[in-house]
């Protein structure tokens, strides 16, 4: 992979006073790299939308800094207005201007004689050339999203921001538009940030993943790396199911109900969390095994086995396994861990 150039940097961004329904920013750091899509994933209330709005210039910063290259966009004393920032934004509800047709919507941010021609070209690229004269309410949800994206891309912004751009759509359309949006962004060579609360969506669109919680970016990296090596229990939970065990390190190892795991790098006596993805468990039929299957259910593409210590039935843990499986409810099993899916983090 070639060296990636940082286009936009956020350092220690703070937003303390916010309106009702908005989350504050404690101290957020983030880099957006040239031509790459960053997915910002976080639960609602984590401040991801506030960060996006701060980058767009729709919110001010109380501290920290947002800069495009050498140009400071926001800090405690500076606030470049949104119209001079060269950001493109796709809003959650698309925010198409209801009084303008699709073509005029796309041309809104363009100046000069060629505005309409450029806008028409953008619409053609979105395969919506024939809808140029249609008003927003005459377009389907998916078409509205494509017009909104075309509109944001038309002025060739330095950075393009997408706020939950697929949330209003049904599942099938969402997948289709997701792929399409990524293709469009890649074709435009855009530096993009997509805000979402859907882990699967974040993993699917991201070149780089940033996890956000309580007003901070808690981890960034390639999606697989972040999934495989979360830095904290919170980070692990954000990306999907995980079993979390508390342990104290003894002799470089941390104890779990399934045996001790390697905790290299932690001094003895250190309290840690052991994070185990459901894929780590291999359950095998074993009359003498210490565990029993409590429930067996299909999760669409794989099987979820709930298991517990054979004696007593709490707690329950979840294992994911491929179809078909010889295991059934009530079977006694032994458990093995694949260390690739196990992470030890400090507590």
């Amino acid at each position, binding site marked *: 992979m070639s060296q990636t150039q940082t286009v936009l940097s956020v350092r220690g961004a703070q937003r303390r*006073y916010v309106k009702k329904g908005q989350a504050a920013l404690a101290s957020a750091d983030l880099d957006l790299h040239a031509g790459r899509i960053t997915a910002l994933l976080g639960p609602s209330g984590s401040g991801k939308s506030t960060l996006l*709005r701060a980058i*767009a*210039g*729709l*919110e*001010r910063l109380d501290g920290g800094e947002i800069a495009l290259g050498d140009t400071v966009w926001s800090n405690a004393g500076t*606030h470049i*207005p*949104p*119209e*001079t*920032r060269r*950001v*493109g*934004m796709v*809003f*959650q*509800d*698309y*925010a*198409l*201007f*209801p*009084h303008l047709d699709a073509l005029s919507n796309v041309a*809104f*941010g363009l*100046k000069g004689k060629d505005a309409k021609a450029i806008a028409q070209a953008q619409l053609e690229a979105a395969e919506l050339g024939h809808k140029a004269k249609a*008003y*927003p*309410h005459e*377009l*389907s*949800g998916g078409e*509205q999203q494509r017009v*909104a994206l075309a*509109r*944001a891309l038309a*002025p060739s*912004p330095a950075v393009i*921001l997408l706020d939950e751009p697929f949330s*209003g759509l049904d599942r099938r359309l969402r997948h289709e538009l997701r792929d399409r949006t990524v293709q469009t962004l890649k074709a435009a060579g855009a530096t993009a940030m997509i805000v979402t609360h859907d882990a699967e969506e974040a993993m699917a669109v991201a070149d780089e993943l940033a996890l956000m919680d309580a007003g901070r970016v808690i981890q960034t990296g390639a999606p697989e790396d972040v999934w495989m090596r979360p830095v904290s229990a919170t980070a692990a939970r954000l990306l999907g199911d995980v079993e979390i065990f508390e342990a104290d390190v003894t002799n470089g190892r941390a104890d779990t109900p399934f045996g001790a795991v390697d905790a290299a790098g932690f001094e003895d006596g250190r309290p840690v969390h052991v994070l185990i993805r459901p894929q780590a468990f291999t359950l095998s039929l074993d009359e003498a095994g210490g565990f029993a299957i409590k429930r067996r259910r299909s999760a669409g593409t794989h099987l979820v086995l709930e298991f517990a210590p054979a004696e007593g039935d709490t707690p329950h843990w979840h294992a994911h396994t491929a179809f078909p499986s010889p295991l059934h409810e009530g079977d006694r099993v032994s458990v093995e861990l694949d260390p690739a899916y196990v992470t030890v983090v400090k507590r």
Partner: protein
Amino acid sequence: MTAGTHKGFWPDRATLLAILAALVCAAPVFAVAWIALTGQSDDYLLHLARTRLPVYLAYSVYVGLVAAGGAALIGTGLGWLIARADFPGRKLFSWVLILPLAVPAYVAAYAWLDLSQAGGPLQAWTGGLFPTVRGGWGAGLMFALVLYPYIFLLARDAFTGQSADAYNAARTLGAGPVTAFWRTSLPMARPALAAGVALVMMESLADYGTVSYLGAPTLSIGLIRAWSGAGSLVDAARLSLILVAIALVVFSLERMQRRRARTTAASGKHKPAPRLVLTGWQSGLAVLACLTPLMLGLVIPLARLAWLALNELAAPGLIAAAFHSLTLASISALCAALLGMATAYALRGGGFMATASARAAGLGYAVPGAVAAVGVIAILSGTQGLIDPAWEALTGSVFPILLTGGAAALIFAYLSRFAAAAIGPSEAALGRVTPALDGAARTLGASARETLWRVHWPLIAAGVCSAGLLVFVEVLKELPATMILRPFNYDTLAIIAHNYAADERLGEAALPSLLIPMVALIPMIFVARYLSRTRTPSGTG
């Protein structure tokens, strides 16, 4: 345009204007209350309480109930028909049915009394069977005929907005179509209907021309008599206070209904009901149902007046009066639209001051024109009392009499009564401009000012204009406040019409009476079409 800015301590320009609107609307009521409570007592009111006051009260209630009942019947029925049924001409009727609002109730009263009085054409054709439109029921009927559009509009939108789910659920639970309507659709529309009924009652309470012409002495009549006959500001203020108290009761009842509305709001996804397609005699009946109130409230009265006007020379001073009417209505409309728009912006920005101002301005709804006029007089004479000594001490000359400021005082009173009416439409229009639209415009390179022109104005213009036009029509029709406040020899169309009609010179009253609805019809058509256009959904899809 508060996106991205910290709310400062000082209110922004919009909030300042909203506060001004609140002052204009609320000051006269408070002035009236102040005068009524602190003024010197005399025997007039005591005398009145023993003699006429019970009659005034009884007539106010009687007329109000007939008006509300009649208008509710017509308005709800037509609202349902337009919202839920399909028949030839439905789209046209959906806005044409609003037009009787352009006819002042007293104009309808002139025409109907003339048609139905002894020796009039209706009695002649029916052999004396047709009752003479007169008294409490007659006045109530006139109000019902020209004010039903208030209820019609709200009912139509309520029935249109209703999801079919509740009705369908009722059907699956064993209710027939009629029962289902009575037990689901109607109760769900009740808050809207209550709001409309409250408006109709208010208008009938505020009226002077109709009730005085048809002989139904309501409180307004007592109020005007106290002022113009006895010339007592204190007594007029005390009667005003009673009138305002009744108005507040009506409005608090309506508020209670609306508070309950939250529990009756449909849950889940909105699924509009399919229209009932009417055919054959059913659709004929529907068309007839729509035509009847139009004929009774609009066409017949105007035709009769046109006929009378044709047989009479134009009254002198008509041109000047028409000019006065148009000037007053235009200036009031502009000011009201501006104040309404500013208040809507202030509300959008949020903040305590904005909300409080909008509330206070809303008081204007509860202020009958005569009361507003008494309030304005109280304020002006109070101010005069303060300025006179100081002015004389400073300049040695007498300060000009404020009351003869005339037109300005009238506009003050009009605004106090009608500016509140301009807030709602502006607010609704501005509601379509979501914060995300601002954000979209700004990130696409438009400055705050540019966003106002390129995004806000196109989206709110029609709403703001129709708010202004509504005020224009109301001012054109206004009579009691004008009677109390107009400068000497300053006539409006309404005044000329009323004066001739009161003198039993209906022929001369006919042309000015006709001119008011004719002029009002043009803006009314714009308003009606605006209110009936299918709402453009915002970008949310």
